[in-house]
C-alpha cells in the first residue's frame, strides 16, 4: 500500500486543499498576487508596455529608474500591446528588455508573444495591476474563456458549455490557464 502521507509530503502539497506550492507550478507569482518589481536595469534598450491606466503609473515610475530612453507604449489591451511588441522587436538587438505592466491575464498573453519572438525569462519584467480575471483554455474544445475566477475555481466554457476546473497550470505558449471538465465525458 502506498503511504499517501509521505507522497503528499514529497510533492510539497498543502494537505488540506491539495494545492501544490505555486512556486513549483507554471503559474507566475505575479498572476496570483499583484506585483510591482523595480525596473530591470541590466539591459541597454528597453520597451515599456503599459496596459491600462493603473499600469501607466507603474511605467512612469520605471521610466525614472532607467538611464536612457525606453520606448514607452501606453495601450488598452493585450492585442495592442502585442502589435507594439512586434514592431519594437523587428529591429531589436541583444541587450533589449521588456518591462510589462497591466492586468495579469493580459500580461500572460503578451509574455507568450514575447517568448514566441525569442525573448527569454531574464529579459522580461512583469508588474501586475490586478489578478482576479483569468483566461481559461478549454482542453476539450480549445477555445478560451476570459472571466473573473480563482485558481481551482470553476467556469463554464464559452465554446462548448462544459464546466471547467481552473487548474494551476499556465501555458507559456498560449498565456492561458488550463481548464478541464469537472465531469467525465459520457459515451454518446
Amino acid at each position, binding site marked *: 500500500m502506498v503511504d499517501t502521507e509521505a507522497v503528499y509530503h514529497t510533492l510539497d502539497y498543502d494537505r488540506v486543499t491539495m494545492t501544490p506550492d505555486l512556486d513549483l507550478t507554471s503559474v507566475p507569482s505575479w498572476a496570483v498576487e499583484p506585483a510591482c518589481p523595480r525596473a530591470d536595469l541590466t539591459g541597454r534598450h528597453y520597451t515599456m508596455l503599459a496596459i491600462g491606466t493603473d499600469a501607466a503609473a507603474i511605467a512612469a515610475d520605471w521610466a525614472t529608474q532607467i538611464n536612457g530612453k525606453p520606448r514607452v507604449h501606453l495601450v488598452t489591451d493585450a492585442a495592442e500591446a502585442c502589435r507594439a511588441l512586434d514592431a519594437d*522587436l523587428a529591429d531589436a538587438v*541583444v541587450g533589449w528588455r521588456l518591462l510589462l505592466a497591466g492586468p495579469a491575464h493580459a500580461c500572460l498573453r503578451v509574455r507568450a508573444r514575447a517568448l514566441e519572438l525569442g525573448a527569454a*525569462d531574464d*529579459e522580461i519584467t512583469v508588474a501586475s495591476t490586478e489578478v482576479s480575471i483569468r483566461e481559461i483554455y478549454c482542453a476539450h474544445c480549445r477555445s478560451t474563456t476570459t472571466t473573473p475566477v480563482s485558481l481551482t475555481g470553476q467556469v463554464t466554457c464559452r465554446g462548448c458549455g462544459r464546466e471547467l476546473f481552473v487548474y494551476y497550470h499556465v501555458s507559456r505558449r498560449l498565456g492561458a490557464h488550463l481548464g478541464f471538465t469537472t465531469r467525465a465525458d459520457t459515451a454518446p
Partner: protein
Amino acid sequence: MSTLTLEVVAVDDHVPGIRTLTLARPDRSVLPSFTPGSHLVIQCAGGANAYSLTGDTTAPREYMVSVLECPQGRGGSRWIHQTLAVGDTVEAHLPRSAFAPVLRARRHLFVAAGIGITPMVSHLRSARRWGRDVRLLYIHRQGRDAYVDEIRKLTDHATIVTGRAAFQSELTTALACQPFGTHVYICGPSQFIDDVVATATASGWPPSRIHVEHFGGELAPGDPFEVELSSTGDVFTVEAGVSLLELLTSRGYAVPSLCHQGVCGECRLPVRSGTVLHRDLYLTEDERRDSMMACVSRASGRVELDL
C-alpha cells in the same frame, strides 16, 4: 560507466605546441554520434583529461581532438605530446555534452581564444549542415593558428585576429549589434572567459544568452581545512595542495570521480554544515547550499559531510 578503447590512427603536429589526434576503434567501426561542443574524457597516467571533439558529429568513424601542451599541467598533455604515437591505444569515456547549441537561437556567436577554438569547430560543422546563422570571433597567438583553414571552409563569417586591441574592438562591436535572439558561446582561458562575459554583461546580455566552456587551468593549492564524516564522526585534515577527493580516496572511501577539474559532476558530496569554498564549474547556486565537488572545492575551518 562504459568506456571506449581507441587507437591513435594519426598525429598532426603542424601547429607548434598543439597536437591533433585522430582516434578510431581498433576495428574501425562507427563511433557514437555526439552533440556539437561535446568533449571526450581520455584516461591519462594519473587521471583523465577532457578534450573537445572537433570532427564530424554524426556517426563518425574517427574522433579528433587537439591538445595544447601545458608544461606546468598535471601531465596529461605532456603524455599525449611526448609519449603517444600512432598505433597506441587510449581509454576514453563516451562523449559528454556540456556546451550544446541552443537550437531556438536566431544566431550563434562564437568567441574563442587559442585552443578554445576546438569546441567551436564542431559547432561550425553542425551549423553548416543545418544552415544555422553563425559568427565567429577567434583570437590566437601568432603562428598558433589552429583550425584556421578548416574554419575558412566552414564559414564566411569568421573574424580571426592575433592582437589583443583588435580583438577587444571587434568583440565590443560584435556584442553591441547582434540581432535579438542571438546566443553567445565562449571558450578560452578562465580570465578570457571572465573578460568576455563582463563585456557581454555590460552590453546588456542576460545570463540566459551566455554560454561558456571552461578548460584546464591550475587552481591554487588552498589552505588546510578539516572534514568531519557525519556517519562515523571521524575528522581528517585536508592539507594545502591535497584535494578532498585525494584524501578520501587514500582513506579507503570510494568516491566516484572522472575529470578532477570540477567539470563533470561525478564526485559531488552532500554537505551538512560548514563554509565551503566552491571552485567547481558544475554545481548551481542552489546546489551549492548542500553539496560540494570533492576534486576542486575546499572549506574554511571544518566542513561536515553527510557520509
